[in-house]
């Protein structure tokens, strides 16, 4: 993607403006995390030109964006699939069989943790506690929490997302 092509559409620029407006003047850097979510939802991942673009939007240095984008686990600085299946692997989810769910998905999609299917549809990622311990095991796809997972439920989900790969943040 060349620099010129990096441009958020008008409605998302408005959303960026709304995020910036939450903070006092001169404190627009506070909107960085939100703006990165918006950029990632639109562009798929945070490539270097996208991050430079975000830096320009917020009038901050590119390194300030790189530092933040590489710190938080939700940001992808490399390409990922259209749908990220993020399976919680921590404590209570492990007790309830998260590891089995992960292997099931790995076998079903033919990818390992952290990998993307050849068709670019799914990325499997194990993540740390998502705050659904009482409803374990669970995975998050886009904004949505899918709880009390079983193999049958995973089949259903994968089918559903394959037909409609809209699983991004901010309902994009």
């Amino acid at each position, binding site marked *: 993607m060349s620099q010129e092509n990096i441009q958020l559409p008008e409605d998302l620029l408005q959303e960026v403006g709304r*995020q910036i407006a*939450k903070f*006092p003047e001169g*404190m627009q*850097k*506070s*909107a*960085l*995390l*939100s703006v*990165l*979510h918006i950029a990632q939802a639109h562009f798929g991942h945070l490539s270097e030109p996208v991050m430079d673009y975000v830096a320009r939007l*917020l009038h*901050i240095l590119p390194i*300030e964006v790189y*530092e*933040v984008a590489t*710190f*938080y*686990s*939700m*940001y992808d600085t490399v390409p990922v699939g259209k749908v990220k299946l993020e399976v919680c*692997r*921590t*404590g*209570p989810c*492990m*007790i309830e069989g998260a590891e089995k769910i992960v292997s099931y998905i790995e076998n079903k999609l033919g990818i390992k943790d952290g990998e993307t299917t050849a068709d670019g549809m799914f990325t499997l990622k194990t*993540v*740390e*506690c*998502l*705050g*659904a*311990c*009482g*409803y*374990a095991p669970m995975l*998050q796809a886009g*904004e*949505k*929490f899918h709880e009390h997972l079983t193999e049958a439920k995973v089949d259903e989900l994968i089918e559903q997302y394959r037909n409609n790969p809209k699983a991004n*943040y*901010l*309902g994009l």
Partner: protein
Amino acid sequence: MDRKLLLEHIGVEGIHTHDVYRKQGGYKAVEKALKSMSPDDIVEEVKKSGLRGRGGAGFPTGMKWSFIAKPEGVPRHFLCNADESEPGTFKDRYLMEKIPHLLIEGMILSSYALGCNQSYIYIRGEYMYVLQILEKAIAEAYANGWLGKNIKGSGFDLDLAVTTGAGAYICGEETALIESLEGKRGNPRIKPPFPAVKGLWGRPTVVNNVETIAAVVPIVNEGGDAYAQFGIGRSTGTKLISASGNINKPGVYEINMGITVEEFIYSDTYCGGMKNGKKLKACVPGGSSVPILPHYLVCKTAAGEDRLMSYESLSDGGFATGSMLGSGGFIVYDEDQCIVRNTWNFSRFYHHESCGQCSPCREGTGWMEKVLHRLEYGHGKMEDIDLLWDIQRKIEGNTICPLGDAAAWPVAAAIRHFREEFEWHVNEPKLCVTKNYGLVTEKKFEPVNA
């Protein structure tokens, strides 16, 4: 006193909307406060209530509020910590999702009490759908005159916005949260200065947990003294407990502090007993950071008294035989669970979540994870157990923020109470991969490596 103070109306259809919430008596506390109470009156009521921070540390809220600096002409900020990420804890998500106006009402009261005109809710990025629920509720609150300029003719202005994290447990630490809210990496700050003096954008700031802020609503409605009637001793009021693990009824429960742990685990009102008729092996009563208790110390203290769901009783016996109420993330383990695996799992979590600023935590969390992994997969050595003990000891208390302690405590407690199980992993390197150790036998407590 089975009455609920926070979740009383949780079952009412549409309670997430302003109008239904209002019909159930919502925003009465704001009306009362703005009409008849000064900011200091509210601080006073909160002090009287004995309310303690519900995020994990249990620090008295009224006292925390009284520390806020009030330099002339400098704005102050009130922040809600909705970065709930402690494994085992999911109560804040439940509260925000089901009854968002309760949090907003608490935010208004607290901001008024502290003289803050611009407040933020910082929510973890993974809770994006909850953020949208909150934004809708905030828009309703603005539309109904509970937020904005000159609220209900009181002369008090308050702007409230939600902002988001992006995947970092460390941002639950209040100074890391502030850094993150400033659009930076979630690196905890070196204290002093404390946020009460220099917080968000260098201004005096108070950060409270979602549940703490929600509790201000019943405190203002009914008075601090009435609130303090709930609970037991210095553990006043009710507490949301997130119950998970091998129990029949996982979920979020509002308990009156002081009920017994036994009642909480086995009664049908709460966890409904152990799943599949299995035996209780262990319990982590306050989120992954707090010491794990072996079955014989869960329902009874070392002195043989009933263990209660309260700050004091759960920590009775210190770390030798007690634990902590923490965030109320109550994880129950049955006889089929492996303590070494669980400890490794938690260690991996802390390794993953360490911000990397200070050396003991950055290097030590990864080291512990590697040693535990080796033990769990049958490649461990007997010395590894003492090595782990020594690593955790060198992390604890020596780091910038409590994440170091949180990483050290679960390892220490697991070795303290389940040493035999660790040794078994070394002695049975093949068996330990396919089979679990089972129940730990009851033993008299002897300090390990003390």
